């Protein structure tokens, strides 16, 4: 079907090798020990793909191309060096948007100059129908990735409220737009008029925007993973258009990677992917009932000195970090606290919930940044049984992921979500800015009012710094 310019076997082989190096790059991430070698393989793979492409094409415009690579590469490199680790979720969202836009541009270039891509039928002088479908879908997915990621970026970066924005009849609008896009792509196979191509592109930009605005801040781990997946499918669709194995292999890898991460995140919240995508979580009045009953309940408030004393007397402390730790940049102070406790002979471990933070693995990166050894950091299923033997659970900036209502209250919006059983520890120290403002899900947390809980009401970083001082 595709009559691409005859590809020399060496060129095809080079793209295949690039694809294999990308697989090895991901494989390296199975352990921190092999991960950097994996990343280097990814770099080599990319270099092979780029050099092979340049080598096999007319190099008259080489200076311009090198210039473009240097400009882009320079910008990317500087951003990567300077970005704060806490800003990683928005950086990843911004990068996704670039992949999406690049896919749209490549699709548009292929539409304007199909001869260059070898996708023109020699007899009719028109685009191959199969190429039109691939191109249409690639551009559509790319555009959705772009506008969706821009919204995700604005929400994560705080330029836009993290609250869901709900349009009336949004499901109808969204389904209608999606149907229109698919219909037009199908029609595109019979009629290759430019208006169809550009309408598909424009509608896809709109739907990407509409899909993400109703989704609230704490569902962003799913959104970011999903957009990650889309950026992969966009690359794969373009790979089909170009008949390029490196792009197809990579697209499939990235697409499945994002899909699996979305699945893991959804499972960690006990929500279906569809309910997350439908959006609106945290906006409904679902939490109001349990929240209203909770006004003015008695709780114990403690000071940094109390917390320091309690922890220095303990045998074991488990620290549970959440998004609040990232917001107040408390990870360095927290590691210092951990070090001082270890000097006192206390065993210190960290427990991470899969959806803590705003992207998969967010907490792990921040703790790594603060030099917390990764073998002290445990995933939910590996550490949850240990809370029963722990003397102190130190919760910092996490809330919903510790809420026992997820196990007991069937009417709770977070019912069924796996939680960290901090309530089982002998005492719980809960660092929180104030008693007002329940967690993201708008549900009150029983743990606040338990006899063995001490609330440490302050900014997370300040509180931890004071505890460090008191431990001294």
């Amino acid at each position: 079907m595709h009559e691409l310019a005859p590809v020399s076997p060496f060129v095809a082989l080079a793209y295949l090798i690039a694809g294999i190096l990308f697989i090895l790059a991901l494989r390296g991430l199975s352990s921190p020990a092999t991960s950097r070698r994996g990343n280097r393989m990814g770099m080599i793979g990319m270099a092979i793909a780029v050099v092979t492409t340049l080598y096999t094409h007319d190099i008259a415009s080489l200076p311009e191309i090198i210039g473009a690579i240097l400009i882009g590469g320079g910008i990317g490199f500087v951003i990567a060096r300077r970005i704060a680790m806490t800003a990683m979720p928005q950086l990843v969202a911004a990068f996704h948007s670039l992949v999406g836009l690049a896919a749209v541009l490549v699709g548009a270039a292929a539409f304007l100059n199909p001869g260059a891509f070898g996708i023109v039928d020699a007899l009719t002088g028109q685009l191959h129908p199969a190429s039109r479908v691939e191109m249409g879908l690639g551009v559509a997915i790319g555009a959705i990735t772009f506008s969706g990621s821009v919204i995700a970026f604005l929400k994560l970066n705080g330029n836009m409220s993290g609250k869901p924005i709900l349009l009336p009849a949004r499901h109808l609008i969204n389904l209608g737009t999606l149907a229109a896009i698919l219909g037009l792509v199908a029609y595109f196979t019979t009629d290759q008029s430019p208006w169809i191509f550009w309408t598909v592109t424009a509608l896809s930009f709109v739907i990407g925007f509409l899909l993400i605005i109703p989704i609230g801040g704490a569902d962003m781990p799913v959104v970011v993973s999903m957009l990650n997946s889309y950026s992969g499918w966009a690359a794969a669709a373009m790979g089909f258009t170009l008949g390029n194995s490196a792009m197809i292999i990579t697209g499939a890898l990235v697409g499945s990677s994002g899909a699996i991460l979305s699945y893991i995140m959804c499972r960690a919240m006990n929500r279906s992917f569809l309910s997350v995508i439908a959006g609106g979580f945290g906006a409904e009045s679902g939490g109001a009932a349990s929240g209203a009953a909770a006004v003015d309940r008695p709780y114990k408030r403690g000071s940094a000195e109390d917390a320091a004393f309690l922890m220095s007397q303990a045998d074991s402390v488990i620290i549970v970090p959440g998004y609040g730790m990232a917001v107040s940049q408390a990870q360095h102070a927290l590691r210092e606290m951990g070090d001082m406790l270890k000097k006192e002979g206390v065993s210190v471990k960290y427990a991470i919930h899969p959806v803590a933070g705003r992207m998969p693995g967010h907490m792990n990166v921040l703790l790594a940044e603060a030099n917390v050894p990764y073998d002290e950091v445990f995933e939910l299923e590996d550490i949850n049984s240990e809370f029963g033997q722990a003397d102190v659970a130190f919760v910092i900036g996490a809330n919903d992921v510790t809420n026992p209502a997820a196990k007991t209250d069937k009417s709770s919006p977070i019912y069924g979500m796996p939680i960290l059983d901090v309530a089982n520890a002998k005492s719980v120290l809960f660092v929180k800015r104030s008693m007002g403002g329940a967690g993201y899900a708008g549900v009150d947390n029983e743990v606040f009012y338990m006899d063995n809980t001490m609330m440490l009401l302050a900014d997370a970083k300040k509180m931890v710094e004071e505890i460090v001082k008191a431990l001294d």
Partner: protein
Amino acid sequence: MDFISILSIFVLACFVGYYVVWSVTPALHTPLMAVTNAISSVIIVGALVASAEAGSAAAKYLGLLAVVLASVNIFGGFAVTERMLAMYKKKERK
């Protein structure tokens, strides 16, 4: 390449992706997203073809713009992944 061989590569790569990604440790999920981001910029291959081929000035400039965007991602993505991975350290054994 004909459509069926391309499709075979795609389907097999999806399976490879599925098994490889499940083997990634959850602690490295953020670097995973950063590196997948970098490698999905292999779309630069398409952008290079568009910029290198004569025939349409508009296509060429769209291609060059795509090269810039994809390069931001490639360099930025790999560099930030490298920076993150360098931070993961094991406990110092005494």
